[in-house]
């Protein structure tokens, strides 16, 4: 029993369960899943679909943070990917064709690859602090997206592209299938190859890793590229959801949510050991929070306050120092009881 409490994912999971419980107490049956036209519907499915972009971004962020880095430019990358894809579709002759949609995806991801290379080069090759290096693209990125869309909110109609967000496959939302599929692939890639161990090694002790022959520069570079590509994919899902390229608001503050998800999931911002399953739970908590806020009828004015309280509670419960203090208190109380 005690061991369950000590598991590093216990408190994040407990928080997730509490949020879901609160929802179903307030509105019994909300967690049920119904089948309509062969598609699954219901709050859990919504959570899966809504969590897709954040999961992709947080996945890349986890790997970046493992190398002692951080990527603040993911939100801007989300906006750029959406802007490129939708502008590409809008300017093509057959906006509705499958080929155009695929072309848009390839062009958008290609540009994200370049953006990732830019970040990676600044951090790995020029040794600029990650927070500064990625701040450049964070601020400049939305300007780039503006340039691409000419400052307009480009709206398009393309059924194949829209399917990225609203489509269903085998009864499940396409967005969720993409995000969770990519999550599984990346998780396997990281843990089945030596990538995970080498990333952790670089994050824990960069100089020792270099002297051990680890190509730390290449690894760090790769991670920033991967993070940008994943953010690009998230941007495509975002854009497909609204079918409007909003350079100002797409992916706004998603970098903060992603960092939160990583931290809630138990990966230290100091780098080193990382925990992908923790990140997944962090993402689910943050997504579920939005649902809980609506269901509980929390006023939109204090929504962010409510979110902050939940996040603080989870991080506090995970803090080893606080746990040690609580354990100390319990010890003392037991001691007093024994001596009473």
């Amino acid at each position: 029993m005690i061991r369950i409490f000590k598991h590093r994912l216990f408190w994040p999971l407990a928080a997730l369960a509490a949020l879901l419980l609160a929802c179903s107490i307030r509105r019994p049956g909300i967690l049920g899943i119904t089948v309509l036209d062969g598609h699954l519907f219901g709050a859990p499915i919504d959570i899966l679909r809504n969590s897709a972009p954040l999961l992709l971004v947080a996945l890349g962020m986890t790997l970046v943070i493992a190398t002692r880095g951080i990527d603040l430019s993911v939100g801007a990358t989300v906006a750029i990917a959406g802007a490129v894809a939708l502008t590409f579709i809008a300017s093509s002759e057959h906006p509705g064709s499958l080929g155009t949609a695929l072309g848009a995806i390839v062009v958008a991801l290609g540009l994200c690859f370049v953006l990732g290379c830019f970040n990676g080069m600044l951090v790995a090759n020029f040794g600029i602090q990650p927070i500064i290096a990625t701040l450049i693209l964070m601020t400049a990125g939305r300007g780039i997206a503006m340039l691409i869309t000419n400052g307009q909110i480009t709206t398009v109609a393309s059924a194949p592209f829209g399917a990225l967000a609203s489509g269903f496959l085998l009864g499940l939302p396409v967005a969720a299938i993409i995000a969770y599929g990519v999550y599984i692939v990346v998780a396997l890639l990281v843990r089945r190859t030596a990538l995970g161990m080498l990333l952790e090694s670089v994050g824990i002790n960069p100089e020792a890793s270099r002297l051990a022959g680890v190509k730390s520069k290449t690894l760090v570079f790769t991670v920033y590229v991967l993070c940008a590509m994943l953010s690009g994919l998230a941007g495509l899902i975002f854009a497909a959801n609204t079918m409007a390229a909003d350079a100002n608001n797409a992916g706004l503050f998603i970098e903060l949510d992603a960092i939160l998800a990583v931290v809630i999931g138990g990966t230290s911002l100091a780098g080193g050991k990382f925990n992908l399953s923790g990140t997944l739970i962090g993402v689910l908590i943050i997504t579920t929070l939005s649902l809980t806020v609506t269901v509980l009828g929390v006023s939109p004015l204090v929504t962010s306050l409510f979110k902050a309280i939940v996040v603080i509670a989870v991080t506090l419960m995970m803090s080893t120092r606080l746990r040690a203090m609580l354990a100390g208190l319990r010890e003392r109380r037991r001691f007093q009881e024994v001596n009473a």
Partner: protein
Amino acid sequence: MIASEPQQRPNAADIPEYPPSSPVVQMTGITVEFPGVKALDSVDFRLFPGEVHALMGENGAGKSTLIKALTGVNQIAAGTVMVSGAPARFSGPADAREHGISTVYQEVNLCTNLTVAENIMLGSEPRRFGGLDWHSMRRQAKVFLTRMGLGIDPASSLGSHSLAVQQLVAISRAMVVNAKVLILDEPTSSLDTDEVEQLFEVMRQLRQDGVAILFVSHFLDQIYAISDRITVLRNGALVQERLTGELPQRELVSLMIAGTPDAQVGQANERSSSGSRAENAKPLLQAVGLGRKGAVQPFDLELYPGEVIGMAGLLGSGRTELARLLYGADKADEGSINLQGAPAKLRTPRQALGHKIAYTSEDRKGEGVVGDLTVAENIILGLQAARGWTRPMPAAKASQVVEAYIKALGIRPANPQALLKNLSGGNQQKVLLARWLATAPKLLILDEPTRGIDIGAKTEIMNLVSELAEQGMAVVFISAELEEVLRLSDRIVVMRDHAKVAEIHSTPDVDVPRLIEIIASGEEDK
């Protein structure tokens, strides 16, 4: 050399009163304890006005601990500090500075993006109408600069000046508070010859003005050029306090290096018969004119399979710097390396690894151990790095390698899943050795592999080195302990003041005193 006709003064008791005044700093019976270690054990130290007093000792001797005890960084467990005859206990460097004891560290602790004047006057800025009086600040700074013989513009940015000038600015800053005592902790390590002379000129001037200077440097020549008196520490204890003019270099070196407690002293090395190479052996590695500015002067070196090369020299003599060039940990800026007769590029550790060269750093914690990874992961790290991340070690093979080395090297606890940071120093060192041995190196460079580990582990590691050489591996063995070097090596390279000064075959007549003499004189022949 200044110490040509020295008078022997073996007893620390009859230290001459020099100069004939009372000490400005008198530390008596200073003991400093860190968890589990006595860093200083009842050390006496005194500092007179108008002298340059050199504090000497090898790594871990307690030099910086003593300085930190004086300036209040380290808590003193026992003993008293008297400054100008009154008991003093400072709360930190800032407090000490206010009481006239200024410290200038090896790394210039200044703000390179501020002006020279701002750096000098920081903390004592002249103020007017609630703001800073810039004009008067520059004028005052100019006075201090002139005193240092520096003609630079106080309004120029500090970063635009050379390191030597920055160092002198740091000293100017130290003098702003009218320092009675100036502590210079390795101020010369990044300066070239002319710059050192400039610094010494300033030091002589300050000495004349009655300032007491505590000087720490690893360069023996500099110690003899500038200091009036030397205090030698070893393993946290006071060895002797002597006048520089009465202490020959050879004696100084032997005071600094351990007083040879075990039986291997003077013993001819164990391997000299077995390890000598065949007549027509071809060198594994040839370094020609290899050097790096500021780190090690160009040197030639040949390494043969099956041979152990020992590197002797004091701390900071360039032992580590030389080894790092051979491994590509630092890039050489001149010279070349041949491997098995063919020119080779060794510009990164990865390239060296590809050529089957392995290197364990002397800084085990900072440059070796990946503490939050397991023992198993640490052992296969080198192998895995060589394979690249796309080709992971098959789990079965990895655990086979790990188990084999845990057993062969006697790593305790024998748990591959233990986090490396939880192992003792000796066992961490064995794990790092395992990491490199697993890559099957042809050349193994060991920088202080026995430092800070218990005597049992030490012996095991030294026996292992012998065995590896017998199996045909070329080994470079660096150690501050000369007995170890003598015992293991077939040839010994002597380093001094960042240059290779001698290379001797380890014959039975080479013993510790002989080696000390070569280190001290920098010459092979008497």
